[in-house]
């Protein structure tokens, strides 16, 4: 219990400081975990309670992601989503995988690292667009849809990882069956669900929490992992009143996810034989490969390399989903590498996102490129 209280207290202080300075909090939560955990004298240790909180954090993160996925929205924007999404997926997956494999990771480990390397942090990208007042830039739309595409790919990656030794086809059929059942429940019970969500007593929050936990617990009987179950629940609930569900699930997500980040930091062990060369190489490549995919996207979609630079500046930060992948896979070496990458890229990313305007202006005044006379939208 003391560990948890200490963790919460440290997070509260960090949250106050980072919000005041308007920089992303995620890298600092992880760093706090690292410094207070194994690497820093073991003030924080994982136990059953912290384990439970962390699991809740992961579950609510994925439930939230499911709520945000609205298939019909993606279908209406197919062309733009696909082009940028496929460039981003190919460039970063290939570079990430090649780098990890050449640096001596096994095939499966390389796949995990490549996935974590590919997935930018949706939370940090969107917050930075809002806080740095970039929503009107045409590149912002591209970044927002890129995040949606990445979320979709993440679901596929999670399905593949968690299938384990099961027959993949059978496994996918099971997932689709679960999704179908949840969809049907949400569809036929829509009025009931909305009547619950409209109440202003404890029922909406209690219902949301219970629905997520009960769905997650069914994974034991169905052989479908919790992660898939809660994403499916989110996608199904998104057809009713997603804003209400987001509002009621947010308090759980906010608290549990912070604990999840700290205790992920605790399991990271930089002192125990971490290869600094490997960690450094992956982190630097993580920044560089998003530059390549960003420039290509900028040239293909907006016809301007400078737009690519803007896309790059806002998508460097890796975060919550990279860590989720590390936790689900659970190897300490992979976890340490991913932790370092997340910390590095999110700190670099917060600066590039804030100062991308200066960067663009600097380049413009030097080269006076014609493309710059064109205004966004």
């Amino acid at each position, binding site marked *: 219990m003391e560990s948890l209280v200490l963790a919460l207290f440290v997070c509260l202080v960090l949250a106050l400081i980072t919000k005041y300075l308007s920089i992303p909090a995620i890298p600092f939560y992880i760093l706090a975990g690292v410094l207070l955990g194994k690497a820093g004298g073991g003030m924080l240790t994982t136990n059953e309670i912290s384990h439970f909180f962390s699991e809740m954090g992961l579950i609510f993160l994925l439930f939230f992601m499911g709520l945000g996925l609205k298939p019909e929205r993606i279908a209406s924007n197919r062309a733009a989503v696909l082009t940028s999404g496929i460039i981003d997926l190919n460039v970063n997956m290939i570079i990430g995988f090649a780098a990890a494999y050449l640096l001596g990771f096994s095939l499966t480990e390389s796949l995990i690292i490549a996935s974590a390397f590919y997935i930018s942090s949706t939370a940090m990208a969107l917050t930075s667009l*809002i806080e740095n*007042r970039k929503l*009107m830039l045409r590149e912002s739309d591209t970044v*927002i849809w890129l*995040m*949606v595409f990445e979320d979709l790919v993440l679901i596929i990656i999670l399905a593949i990882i968690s299938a384990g030794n099961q027959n993949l086809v059978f496994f996918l059929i099971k997932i689709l069956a679960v999704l179908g059942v949840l969809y049907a429940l949400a569809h036929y019970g829509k009025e009931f669900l909305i009547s619950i969500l409209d109440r202003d007593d404890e029922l909406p929050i209690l219902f949301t929490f219970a629905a997520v936990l009960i769905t997650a617990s069914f994974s034991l009987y169905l052989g479908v992992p919790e992660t898939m179950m809660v994403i499916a629940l989110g996608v199904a609930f998104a057809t009713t009143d997603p804003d209400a569900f987001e509002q009621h699930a947010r308090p759980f997500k906010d608290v549990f996810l912070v604990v999840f980040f700290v205790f992920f930091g605790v399991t990271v062990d930089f002192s125990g034989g971490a290869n600094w060369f490997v960690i450094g190489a992956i982190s630097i490549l993580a920044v560089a490969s998003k530059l390549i995919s960003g420039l290509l996207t900028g040239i293909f979609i907006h016809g301007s390399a400078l737009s690519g630079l803007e896309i790059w500046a806002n998508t460097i930060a890796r975060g919550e989903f990279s860590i989720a992948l590390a936790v689900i896979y659970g190897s300490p070496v992979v976890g340490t590498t991913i932790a370092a990458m997340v910390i590095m890229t999110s700190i670099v990313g917060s600066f590039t996102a804030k100062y991308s305007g200066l960067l663009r202006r600097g380049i413009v005044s030097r080269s006076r490129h014609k493309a710059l006379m064109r205004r966004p*939208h």
Partner: protein
Amino acid sequence: MALRSLNLPGVGTKYEFETDKGDTVAIFFTKTGSIQMYTLQKNCNTPSAAEMSPVEARRLGNILTGAIIEADQESVEIAFSALADLRITIHTFFVTAAVVGKTIEDLQIRARTGATVIAVCRHDRNIINPPPTFVFEKGDAALVIGESDHIKKFEREIMVN
């Protein structure tokens, strides 16, 4: 002036339109609850932005519709362009000594001014559609609806005398 609205996943709703003179205005209602307004001048490539709370945004909206905003009294003008440009004004007044202790019937508000009292705020409670027998008390704030001439008449004839 074509208004576009767009739902941005994870961010909120975007409204954008281009003025006849070629400037662009975009408004974003973000999920965090704040409202961001961007303006982009014609032939310029960096927009300028302002972030507002919902209350501030409503105030800005009132100013833009042409309503008069005073320090403590507020009015909203609603224009229905489809109904021969019908303009309805809603104005708040803090009751003056002239009306305290009188009923709406005594004052003959509608007959004399054309305006109607549609709500009264008393001690942080709202009384919607007060009956003709409603008696004004000190400290009440009345919400009056009508065309702007009616409102002016109400202010001159009812609140002052």
